[in-house]
């Protein structure tokens, strides 16, 4: 059964429509990531599910019950905010118990729940501290802990990693993935603009652009069968090469897309001939930017080291099975 269902949901501020015709059905225990460029409406959608924004049109159901008009705290959801939003004057324990206190749980129950969550997140030793005595990563855990104590059916994350530094971000990402495994019945909705976070965490990804859903699918579906040029360009790193002109027209399309990892590079033979402009060496991979005659600049990804120098002449061969073709409106062309 679906825990969260959105039917024709829309949002407008006055005459400006920021979200329209959103239809989604999230399964119990699923980890769903809303991803998209900034301004696409993903955070607004999350806040509508949370109840912090009014729903202008359509219906929101949680566990089959209409929730459009329900108070946030009564929806069985918990939220982790981008800035953590810990209460600065309360201790960690008070931060985690505040919601339970509002729900009028008895003292022993509150204590038990807080301690259980603290144990799960390994913050038992911090319960008497104030937020300002904690590191960024610890604050993040407390924010998650505050959400866990409420024992929600749906867990909402609003860009929770964006305030952490790069190293900590990877650790916390792993922890969130682990958390969702330990809470198999809890549906997680996670908002991010970072497609790597989306790909690594999600069971299913919802790609939003300009207030509409571009595509919903598992990370691999999105990677292999993008439903639009936008999704094709947004998912995958480095970005897919988009080539216009003769190459595309030869396939009866406006745009010809090929991922850097689906192009073979050879010194002697290949479909395309070109000259290396630049190589970027990451150790595990090398990105070779090649100026192909009559086509343009193409980025090629090669595993490990690639012995090519700028200025060198090379040959490229795209993998015919991995070509994506799009028409003028960015819709896929079956070719």
């Amino acid at each position, binding site marked *: 059964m679906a825990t969260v269902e959105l039917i024709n949901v829309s949002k*407008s501020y006055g005459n400006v429509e920021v979200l329209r015709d959103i239809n989604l059905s999230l399964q119990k225990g699923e980890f769903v990531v809303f991803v998209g460029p900034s301004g696409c409406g993903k955070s607004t959608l999350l806040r509508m599910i949370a109840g*912090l924004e*009014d*729903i202008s049109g359509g219906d929101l159901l949680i566990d089959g019950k209409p929730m*459009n008009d*329900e*108070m946030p705290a009564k929806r069985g959801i918990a939220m982790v905010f981008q800035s953590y939003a810990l209460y600065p004057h309360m201790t960690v324990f008070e931060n985690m118990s505040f919601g339970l206190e509002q729900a009028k749980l008895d003292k022993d129950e509150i204590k038990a729940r807080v301690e259980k969550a603290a144990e799960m997140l390994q913050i038992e030793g911090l319960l008497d501290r104030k937020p300002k005595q904690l590191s960024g990563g610890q604050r993040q855990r407390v924010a998650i802990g505050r959400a866990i104590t409420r024992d929600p059916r749906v867990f909402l994350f609003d860009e929770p990693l964006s305030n952490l530094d790069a190293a900590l971000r990877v650790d916390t990402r792993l922890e969130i993935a682990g958390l969702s495994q330990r809470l198999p019945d809890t549906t997680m909705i996670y908002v991010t603009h970072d497609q790597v976070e989306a790909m690594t965490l999600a069971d299913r990804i919802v790609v939003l652009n300009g207030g509409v859903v571009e595509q919903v699918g598992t990370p691999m579906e999105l990677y292999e069968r993008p439903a639009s040029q936008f999704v094709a360009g947004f998912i995958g790193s480095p970005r897919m090469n988009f080539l216009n002109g003769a190459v595309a027209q030869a396939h009866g399309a406006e745009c010809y897309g090929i991922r850097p990892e689906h192009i073979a590079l050879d010194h002697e033979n290949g479909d395309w001939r070109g000259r290396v402009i630049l190589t970027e060496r990451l150790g595990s991979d090398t990105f070779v930017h090649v100026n192909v005659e009559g086509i343009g600049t193409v980025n090629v990804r090669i595993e490990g080291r690639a012995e090519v120098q700028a200025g060198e002449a090379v040959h490229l061969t795209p993998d015919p099975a991995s070509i994506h073709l799009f028409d003028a409106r960015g819709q896929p062309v079956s070719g």
Partner: protein
Amino acid sequence: MAKTEQRSRLSRSRTRSAWLFLAPMLVMLLIVAAWPLGRTIWFSFTDASLDLMSEARWVGFRNYLEYVDFGDGEGQYYGLLADPRWWRSVWNTILFAAVSVSFETVFGLIIALVLNQQFRGRAFVRAAVLIPWAIPTIVSAKMWAWMLHDQFGIINDMFMALGMISEPIAWTASPETAMVAVMMVDIWKTTPFMALLILAGLQMVPGDIYEAAKLDGVPAWRVFRRLTLPLIMPAVLVAVVFRALDALRVFDIVYVLTPNTDATRTMSVYARENLFDFDQFAYGSAASTLLFVVIALITITFIMATRMDLEGKRS
């Protein structure tokens, strides 16, 4: 056409609690401000007296201006607008506000510039500067009344020692100097307020523009005139308007320092005299109303001119 927004229970309950939270304050302001103001204006069009307020009858503009025809072709104007004492108090008020605020601005600017420098004991100086502001107006007036005393006052003693005057001056009693005395006390007392507001403006000027000017070798006076002054002008302007509005309603200093003299009687003093001392309640209300209109006009002009950011959208 815009869709009528479907509003959730949360936003409805928040709007409801907004009005609930505002209600006590609004009721309070209604009782102590809006209603009394309305009644004052109403009284100004009646023949109300202190003891017979409830029996006040509408008399139109009689308290403001009325032409009484004596029947033989002769006649005379009566009412507030024909009262030379009223016009004298209007003039006194304007003179007081203009002179005091001008001096306060200049002195305030000087003190603010000094306090904006880094020097040892700055915290002490700033605290000392605040003292006149903290002293109750009545106390300041009394303190100065004593210092300005014609026989035993220290001011006369000082000025004579310095050779600035040859014989003691009756500062508060003589009509020529009474207004000067009132202004002196007001300037002394409110310059700190001005200085603080200007200092706040000064502290918002980014330091690097001074560095840039220094590197370019711009002389200090030019830096002040071409950089500092234009940048702090908005803050100075706000401070001047605040002070001017305050100065136009001056009452305490005049009432205590120089009671009952035409030389210093201001609009507020004139109005109160009529209300409670001369038993001309309606007439005094008319004077109060006029003062309100003057101040309201200035305030509205100011708000319109600066397009004050009330919603906090800027910042």
